[in-house]
């Protein structure tokens, strides 16, 4: 493959601010081996000029870890949700479109506000309810089998891919998506999280909760960490079924 004369075309959906109208801009840059989308966007930053030579503002995007563990560079690459840092140009072809995620309010260009994910984590009490300045001794032991299982659930970095790929998450529904449901499972599984287990289930049966799941299973396919999200949804459904009567109590 000749690398010298290959040109990468980047079509970026741009929007100055939440109120502004979105528009498309096309950029060109020479191909470099092992390029990813972040490198392409940095290339634009150096000299923000569209394909037809017009001067423009640099494309705004977020990135943190550059190794697919922080989630902030999540965007639509050729229409599909993924992290810009792990999206290699070699897999994409020479014409690439970039769009911001559609299930979150837009901030600017490729940056969206993902705070609804944090709100969902608060809703399902995705934490261990023990906190003390005093030494309360070691926690209960967790068997290694459970550690291994829960570790996978804990690799979620709140990127929002599962919500983006979910047809049930849209402006006509309040569905919280798979991510907080998986976190509820993680903390319901933890021995110190168990005291709040029913509280989490109650949060899941409220409006926009687990019942809005449409069994598309796109979430598990879209998850960059391959978290078994369908298992998590089913497991929480099972816990709800088992605690059916408790949900109506107090």
């Amino acid at each position, binding site marked *: 493959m000749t690398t010298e004369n290959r040109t990468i075309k980047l079509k970026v959906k741009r929007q100055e601010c939440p109120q502004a109208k979105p528009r498309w801009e096309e950029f060109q840059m020479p191909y470099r081996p092992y390029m990813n989308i972040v490198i392409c966007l940095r290339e634009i930053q150096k000299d923000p000029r569209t394909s037809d030579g017009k001067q423009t503002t640099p494309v705004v995007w977020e990135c943190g870890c550059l190794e697919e563990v922080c989630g902030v560079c999540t965007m639509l690459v050729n229409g599909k949700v993924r992290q810009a840092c792990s999206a290699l140009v070699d897999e994409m072809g020479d014409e690439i479109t970039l769009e911001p995620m559609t299930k979150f309010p837009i901030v600017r260009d490729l940056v969206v506000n993902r705070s609804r994910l944090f709100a969902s984590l608060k809703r399902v009490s995705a934490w261990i309810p023990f906190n003390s300045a005093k030494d309360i001794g070691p926690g209960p032991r967790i068997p290694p089998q459970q550690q291994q299982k829960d570790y996978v659930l804990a690799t979620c970095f709140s990127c929002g891919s599962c919500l983006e790929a979910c047809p049930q998450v849209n402006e006509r529904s309040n569905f919280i998506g798979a991510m907080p449901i998986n976190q509820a499972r993680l903390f319901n599984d933890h021995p110190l999280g168990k005291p709040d287990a029913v509280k989490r289930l109650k949060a899941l049966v409220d409006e926009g909760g687990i019942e809005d799941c449409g069994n598309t299973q796109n979430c598990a396919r879209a998850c960059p960490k391959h978290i078994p999200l369908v298992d998590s949804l*089913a497991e929480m459904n099972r816990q709800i079924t088992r605690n059916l009567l408790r949900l109506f*109590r107090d």
Partner: protein
Amino acid sequence: MKIPLHFILKRLHSFTGFLPIAAFLTEHMFSNFYILQGPEAYNARIELLSNLPFVMFMEIGLIALPILYHAGYGFYIVFTGKDNLAWYPYRQNWFYTLQRWTGLLAFAYILFHLYQTKGSEFLYGKEVNYARMAEIMHVPGFLWFYLASFTAIMFHFANGLWGALIGWGAVTSDAGRRVSGWICALAGVTLYVMGVSALLTLAK
């Protein structure tokens, strides 16, 4: 106490699907299967069913109301979804979209089927029996509509049953989903073959 109404309505939708409606569908396909034994057997079966005690209450309470509720809430579910097959053309995503379209077709079909059977009996006094059903099936348009609707309904039934197993937490693993998927598919295909063979016998 805060009653989780949203949750109850959705689970009721699921429940009506896999209990009264699926049970009725199964019964209906078994009854239709008598068509293969000829007009006498089928007419005797209709006679038997229509002479069950409290048959009208059973028809309304165990068949009509569950179907109406399931369809009504189903319309709401269709409204709250926004399919994205173009970007995520996965098998299960196809099933999700098909589940919605087959549901809509099934409801349209049920209304039409009801009009052709009970409706015609009530309005024009055309008794529902082997001869009447054979008369309908000899119109190619009706036969094709029935065949298409059967396909849709059996898919909706099998996929819905499979989804309900996840929705109630009966199946929580990938292997479980695979096994239960084949079982649900087998149940759907069995009822489909029974239904279609009855239709084709009528159309002969």
